């Protein structure tokens, strides 16, 4: 796992204001947010069309994810939940590879084992997530302890939602991080909902960042619709962690624009007004306006950027949908490094049965 790609191109520009996104990187960050927005919308549509089986959209959380990951080093390890498309795109994961995973075809490095959104790749320092919420939090802490022990100057970053602050691993992970001063940045995207449960009913603490007190670590609330604010908070937390000053819990306040997942209908529980109020602060639009005003973008270059993103997405879909399905017998691989005698026999028997060509459902 030594081949991290340089997903964030290093900038020639000297870091004058070390806690700000370098000006020349802003258009690329914006482009990543646009790509996330478009690709996310498209994937939900693919699910509606039955072309992928399930999807967890992230609309509304672009600035939080891109701002956070932009502030990190490519060598830092990410432990996503399932909604972190923005982080993956910053790291440079190809759209086709993501789609291969969503489809579960033979191009999927996960070999069709997981539901969509649960991808991860050593090359991009993104650890494959599971569905049970929160478990990645203590993994991130363990990895940070290991990195520290090995003398590697990296941080680990678990992503999770407001609901997940109630999980066992939130408690265990933050407590271990405090005790062992693990270089971990706990990045909580408070999108105000855990499926149908509003933030106010999840916990009575005033903010989620307040929970840091319980572990003697730093807690920070940040406007997650503002890519700059997020970048600054993460950058500062990273510096602090690497100075040996311990972990940070960052609460990025955002809003989930879409349903919890393709299986969810937010109309059953969510007031329309709330959504409208937050949509008025759409993070993609906000950065668009800023860049237009700052002259880093023109109406024309912006339109071209959106078109190019759309084209990139279309071609990735075409490619992924043309990729062969996964090999049936691959189902038996990777349980252990070598199969047990029992599994070996099951595989052999199944192979024979498949070979018999009987009707299969």
């Amino acid at each position, binding site marked *: 796992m030594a081949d991290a790609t340089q997903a964030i191109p290093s900038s020639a520009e000297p870091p004058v204001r070390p806690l700000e996104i370098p000006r020349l990187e802003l258009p690329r960050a914006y482009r990543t947010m646009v790509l996330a927005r478009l690709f996310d919308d498209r994937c939900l549509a693919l699910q509606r069309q039955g072309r992928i089986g399930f999807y967890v959209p992230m609309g509304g959380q672009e600035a939080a994810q891109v701002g956070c990951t932009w502030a990190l080093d490519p060598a830092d390890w990410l432990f996503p939940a399932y909604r972190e498309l923005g982080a993956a795109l910053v790291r440079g994961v190809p759209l086709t590879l993501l789609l291969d995973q969503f489809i579960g075809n033979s191009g999927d490095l996960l070999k069709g*084992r997981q*539901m969509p959104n649960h991808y991860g790749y050593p090359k991009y320092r993104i650890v494959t997530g599971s569905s049970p919420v929160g478990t990645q939090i203590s993994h991130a802490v363990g990895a940070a302890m290991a990195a520290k022990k090995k003398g590697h100057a990296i941080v680990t970053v678990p992503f999770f939602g407001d609901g997940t602050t109630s999980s066992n691993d939130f408690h265990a992970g933050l407590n271990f991080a405090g005790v062992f001063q693990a270089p971990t940045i706990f990045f909580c995207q408070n999108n105000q909902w855990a499926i149908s449960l509003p933030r106010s009913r*999840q916990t009575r603490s005033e903010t989620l960042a307040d929970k840091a007190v319980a572990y003697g670590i730093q807690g920070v609330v940040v406007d997650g619709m503002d890519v700059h604010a997020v970048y600054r908070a993460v950058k500062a937390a990273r510096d602090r962690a690497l100075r040996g000053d311990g972990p940070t819990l960052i609460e990025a306040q955002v809003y989930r624009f879409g349903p919890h997942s393709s299986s969810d209908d937010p109309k059953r529980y969510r007031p329309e007004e709330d959504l409208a109020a937050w949509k008025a602060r759409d993070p993609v639009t906000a950065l668009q306006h800023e860049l237009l005003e700052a002259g880093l973008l023109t109406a024309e270059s912006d339109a071209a950027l959106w078109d190019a993103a759309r084209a990139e997405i279309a071609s990735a879909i075409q490619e992924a949908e043309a990729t062969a399905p996964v090999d049936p017998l691959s*189902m038996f691989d990777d349980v252990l490094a070598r199969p047990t005698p029992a*599994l070996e026999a099951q595989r052999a028997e*199944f192979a024979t049965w498949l070979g018999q060509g*009987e009707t*299969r459902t």
Partner: protein
Amino acid sequence: MTELNLVQAVNRALAEAMRADPDVLVIGEDVGLNGGVFRATEGLYKEFGADRVIDSPLSETGIVGAAIGMALYGLKPVAEIQFLDFIYPAFDQIVSELAKFRYRSGGQYPCHVVVRAPYGGGVKGGLYHSQSSEAYFAHTAGLKVAIPSSPADAKGLLTTAIFDEDPVIFLEPKRIYRAVTGEVPDGDHRVPFGKANTLRQGDDVSVFAYGAMIHPVLQATDTLLAEGISSEVVDLRTLVPLDEAAVCASVEKTGRAVIVHEAPRTAGFGAELAALLAEKCLYSLKAPVLRITGFDTPFPYALENLYLPTPERIAHGIRSTVRAG
């Protein structure tokens, strides 16, 4: 009688139990306004309010732990775990506490909680929305384990569970939540625990299954009938208590046994059934006992239809068992 699908039958059982007894309540994630992610609790929040249909924070530890406390205080909580795959944060509460309260207190503190969970594959859920971990609970002394295969049993077994004296793990085969409909008795319908249901009488082979697997089993055995193979199909309904008498009686008649479940084979509940036969019915067995099960792998996503026993794979297994001896 009303024609309902399985999840509607679950909903009916809950609603009627809550009407009958003010101590019955529901607690879980998204069970309130949202009516549960599978709509099992649809309408209950409106009818019974937030005090009896409790939307909990995201903690299965807390859901089961709090439910235990409520039960100790005399309520009859029905805890919903959103997917069986998410029950593990509550495993300590279930195994260390729920299962052992009566025993460890010398009978002073019975602890009656129903833990409901949708389970099993066939919904494109991958590793974490498909598991069948009934064997863990069946191996845990102090728990009952019930699994319906039809809407009528869903209502009847769940009603029995809610008014039982013991903790019950109630597993609902989500693959057939909507796919299977049937007539469901109105009113206080209870199906007793520990009584298997013989769905088909037969002479050549006994097929034991439960939950969603009953349906491919029936497809397979109906097909085989045309080939002249007569199968006895026994739906176990509850794994604990197990209707050992029915299992043995059937094999003593047919002399052959096939066991079908979705869970991985090694140390799955099928092993207990096969062991029972090897202990109690050895001399009746004309052919090796066969387990047709999920494979010894985590549950896969893209290939779930190959992982799950199909009517064809089941028919193949039954056929070879009948031919074997």
